């Protein structure tokens, strides 16, 4: 794609994650090593690449997938109104709003709770696979995908916030009470795990493949 460029790794330079100080990597030390190199200025750990990036991201993504199943099957909210108990899962809530003509709310919930987390998970899986297969296909677009993933990740928390606010607000005793269901915990787990997974993934790995092929 491009001519061989001088990368920081090739030059033996490290950039601090915290204070951006450019330091020279200690000779002999290499990216995967367990010797910790530290920033001489702020003392943060320095890595050539995020350590164990692929493994950690995989583990987190798989955990997120596992959590996503109960998050959708188990009730998100348990509404007790006049003695009538009703528990709603994410999808039943979405269907309820759509059926009652409140499609904007339904759509928001659908996007925040279903579309976003799933998109994130699938993007991460795709990125992981593509990195592991040393794909050279459209690294720029893949990097953009990664940035999108990072950016939208936190918006999935909307759902959790809605539930927590409802639980706190609707405390009318026998008239109406809303309680968070066990599904909410799993859903929160999904959101947190995907955010961490996105953090552990090192987008530079995408470009490493470009370098190595260029070298060869």
């Amino acid at each position, binding site marked *: 794609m491009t001519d061989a460029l001088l990368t920081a790794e090739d030059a033996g330079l490290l950039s601090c994650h915290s204070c951006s100080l450019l330091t020279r990597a200690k000779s*002999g030390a*290499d990216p*995967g*090593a367990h010797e910790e190199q530290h920033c001489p200025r702020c003392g943060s750990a320095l890595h050539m690449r995020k350590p*164990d990036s692929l*493994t*950690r991201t995989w*583990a*987190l993504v*798989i*955990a*997120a997938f*596992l*959590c996503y*199943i*109960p998050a959708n*099957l*188990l009730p998100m909210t348990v509404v007790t*109104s*006049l*003695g*009538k*108990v*009703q528990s709603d899962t994410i999808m*039943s809530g979405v269907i309820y709003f759509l059926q009652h003509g409140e499609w904007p709310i339904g759509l928001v919930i659908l996007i925040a709770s279903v579309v976003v987390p799933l998109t994130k998970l699938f993007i991460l899986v795709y990125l992981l696979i593509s990195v592991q297969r040393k794909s050279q296909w459209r690294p720029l677009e893949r990097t953009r995908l990664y940035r999108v993933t990072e950016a939208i990740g936190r918006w999935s928390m909307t759902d959790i916030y809605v539930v927590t606010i409802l639980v706190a607000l609707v405390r009318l005793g026998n008239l109406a009470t809303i309680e968070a269901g*066990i599904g909410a915990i*799993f859903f929160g*787990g999904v959101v947190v*795990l995907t955010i961490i997974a996105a953090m552990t993934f090192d987008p530079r790995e995408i470009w490493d493949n470009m370098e190595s092929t260029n070298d060869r």
Partner: protein
Amino acid sequence: MTDNTAGNAPENEIPEAVVKPRKGISIVWIIPIVAALIGAWVAYQSWSEIGPTIVITFGNAEGLVAGKTKIKYKDVEVGLVKQIDLEKDLKHVQVTVQMNKGSKGFLTKKTRFWVVKARISAGTVSGLGTLLGGAYIAIDPVNGGKFVKDYVGLEAVPIVTTDQPGQHFQLKASRRGSLDVGAPIYFRQIQVGEVVSYQLSEDAETVNFKIFVNDPHHIKVKENTRFWNASGLDISLSAAGFNVDMESIVSLVSGGLAFEVPPDTEPGKDAEENMVFTLYDDHTAAFEQQITLKEKVLLYFGGSVRGLTPGAPVEFRGIEIGEVKSVELEFDPEKQDFVIPVLIEIEPERMGKNAAIFSEERRMAILSAYVERGFRAQLKTGNLLTGQLYVDMNFYPDAEEEEIRMVDGYRVLPTIPTSLEEITKGVNVVLDKLKAFPFDKIGADLTRTLSHLDTTIVQAEGTLKSIDTIFAEDSVLSQELQKSMRELSETARSLRILTDYLERHPEALLRGKEK
């Protein structure tokens, strides 16, 4: 993983570190494992709560929502409607229900399901909670028995559920009356049960009621208990007067039953489950009909029977012995006159406890003897205000001799006219006689007699006058009479003097008057 060189070690004796690829798994895999474990545990939890799936068939799915409608027993959720489908023939609705775990034991053949909705009827208001919370399916679980998967839902709320202690009984009635399902059953005016169902008997001759009496009142139902219809307001206007009878306001609207052991009898053994009783029309009927022997007799009345209705009492010296069954009008072609046959029913037992023991012939012989002695029926006014009549039986020894006839298979007892009728008749006879009296002739005769009398009086005057003259003061007769009277008084005086003297001188009778 990669070469690890200790670059600045020139000495050969110092061994080079062995490079080993990192073994084992990264600690980060604990996260998905933990997630998987938690997920598995939660999955097991929810799976373990899932009980059997059953299908209930209903006539319609009014108020039922898939995924929302609950199955409740004593307000405890025991299941959830999963799916509502139409049957293939489009006649019924199949409701698929996911029951909770552990419900298999009470999902047996006798278990019943029904939809609870707000129900407001004359006596009860129930299921108001469903107005806000939506309908739910109620279950009447019956323990013991095989698990059954398919049920037919009840269309109406059952009155009695299996968990209610008490007993069922059956009643036979000639008609339904105003009794409805759920109609109250009273014992001494306290509600102790309800009518569960009613239906025509197979031969459509009677209406069979199924009733339920709650514990502990069911033991009040004895073998000889009598049930009667306490429905509504029993207003009876009879020869006995005006009578209003009512068990309660509720029974006024929705009908009701009452039961009691006849007051003069000993309560019998406790009635058994599903024992069959007769349902009497009213309280009076319930206690009167202990008499089994009934004798139908015809009476022919000549006069008006206005005020005589079926049901009017037949009395003997003021004691009711039967009732009027029918009053008809018949034309007697022989006499060219209308007659009124009144069919009455007499209960001979009321006239003597032995009547039931006697044979038919014996009773007839007695009756014939009675009639010979003047046993007659008569219409009498029972209530002056309303003009109600009743049939009075009594002995009238002066009555004309009559015998018992047979007409249309009924015995005909002789009657005597009504007292009023009798009086009217008597007065009529007098009037007729008066009418026949020859007032005109008597008048003429009287005039003639009076004229005779006139002359007689004139003659009499003459006679009196002559008498007058005879007795006048200056008449000869009078003077002679005065003279005679004087003579007589003279004589009397001298006689007195004589007797005085003789009294003082009795010897003078012998010796003569002294000197």
